[in-house]
């Protein structure tokens, strides 16, 4: 590991300024991903600016009834917050589905949003990777891509975003508070992430020195009946193969509104807006849930070893929406269900 300097930041603004002015600098929060990547040699900052002491560490009621979550809030405290559990169960479930008790005690909300892909080639410095070394190539398309993207990738990169929490935040229309060089600003979660295209090394729209200070979740009444489901290769402590965060507003058997986001299928938490649009005003039936999922997945461009994710996503979406709509399990299996 490259030797590095260490500074405990005095406040968010000076931390942002220091990282902006020092190209070799990086913010350090929980460190669960960054320190690991430094050990692997994937990243080698020459200066760590520790922001754990200055990031807001509380969850507060926002003006319009939502929640403002400080970027320094630890994942475990987010999942344990009574308001999160009661009003946004999909968010609590998503956080609890991720990592381990130890890692959730360390990892922060801001850092979780910015964690890097677990693509094997990105983490192995003996292999080419367009995300780690731009222009070096991508062995994943012809190699191990079982858990990589089926949506939103490019010829240059099919890495997936690993966060569970961010999937729920995407479904909940979260916005991100950023301390930048020119002062604070607010962007949507959708504006935070960028698709890889021909620059997979650029994962977000943040500028050097931009520091996430808080995440705000707007009030959403029907999110009280929402859920997060994670499909993975072992029962616990594993990254997702596929995950879905969903909330459904049904009245008289008709969908008024739906929120759906899918994880581990794209370079960013994938908000299923096509499916949401189709469902609005339609009957809350497994058949329509399947049609909506199919429409969303029409854009899928899977590789040979991850094509299984297409029916997997479809089935998890249909099952979750059916459960949220109160449809008995025996009536859920739609035509074309391949499980």
């Amino acid at each position, binding site marked *: *590991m490259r*030797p*590095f*300097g*260490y*500074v*405990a*930041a*005095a406040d968010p603004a*000076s931390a942002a300024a*220091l990282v902006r002015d*020092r190209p070799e600098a990086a913010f*350090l929060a929980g*460190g*669960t991903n960054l*320190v*690991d990547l430094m*050990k*692997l040699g994937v990243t080698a900052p020459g*200066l*760590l600016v*520790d922001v*754990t002491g200055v990031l807001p560490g509380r969850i507060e009621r926002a003006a319009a009834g939502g929640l403002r979550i400080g970027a320094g809030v630890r994942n*475990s405290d987010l*999942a*344990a917050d*009574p308001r999160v*559990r*009661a009003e946004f*169960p999909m968010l*609590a*479930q998503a956080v*609890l*589905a991720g*990592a*381990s*008790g*130890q*890692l959730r*005690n*360390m990892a922060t909300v801001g850092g979780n949003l910015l964690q890097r892909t677990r693509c094997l080639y990105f983490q192995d410095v003996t292999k080419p990777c367009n995300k780690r070394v731009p222009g070096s190539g991508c062995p994943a398309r012809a190699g191990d891509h079982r858990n990589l993207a089926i949506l939103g990738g490019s010829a240059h990169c099919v890495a997936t975003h690993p966060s569970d929490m961010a999937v729920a935040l995407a479904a909940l229309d979260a916005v991100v508070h950023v301390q930048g060089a020119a002062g604070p600003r607010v962007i949507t979660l959708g504006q935070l992430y960028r698709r890889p295209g021909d620059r997979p090394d650029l994962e977000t729209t943040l500028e050097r020195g931009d520091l996430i200070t808080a995440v705000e979740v707007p009030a959403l009444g029907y999110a009280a009946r929402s859920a997060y489901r994670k499909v993975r290769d072992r*029962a*616990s*402590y594993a990254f997702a193969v596929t995950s879905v965060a969903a909330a459904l507003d049904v009245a008289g058997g008709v969908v008024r509104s739906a929120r759906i986001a899918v994880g581990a299928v794209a370079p960013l938490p994938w908000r299923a807006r096509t499916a949401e649009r189709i469902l609005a005003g339609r009957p809350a039936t497994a058949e329509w849930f399947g049609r909506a999922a199919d429409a969303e997945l029409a854009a899928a461009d899977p590789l040979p070893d991850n094509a299984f994710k297409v029916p997997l996503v479809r089935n998890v979406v249909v099952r979750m929406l059916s459960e949220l709509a109160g449809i008995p399990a025996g009536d859920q299996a739609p035509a074309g269900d391949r499980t």
Partner: protein
Amino acid sequence: MMACVTTADQTSSELTLAVNGAVHRLRLDHRTTLLDALREHLGLTGTKKGCDHGQCGACTVLADGRRVNSCLLLAVAAQGTEITTIEGLAGSGGELHPLQAAFVERDALQCGYCTPGQICAAAAMLGEAEAGWPSAASASLTGPVTLDAAEIRERMSGNLCRCGAYVNILAAIMDVSAGAGPEKAGAR
């Protein structure tokens, strides 16, 4: 003004670590993890290095009573927290912590390498359950926590045992959870 901008270009620092009730001052390269500081600089070798990447839990210690992976926590960033290692869990008179006694009673280990991490993680885990924290195995996010086998397995999933002593690890933790009660099990 930065709090300690003078260190921005230095690659080591004079730092203070509070471990098991004692305060240590030492100069460490910033690359030193808390795990390496404990083992290599303070002689506290009870905490084990397994994977060194936050995947096995062997290095679990308590920071202000909360379980953390000491392999991913830089020592320089661990200043200001009270660290408790397996050496600090036992009573001042040397009497075993209830979880230590239960692990002995249940023979909850084979090689023993993961045991300090298992016990530190379990001590904090019982406190989390006592505080009402739900887990991914909880039937309800808002209901009371009942530490049945499925709950304990999920809550302890960050600690691997390559010998596969899980059956007795589970039994030992259930003994303490059901018997002594978490407040006696060292949870803060």
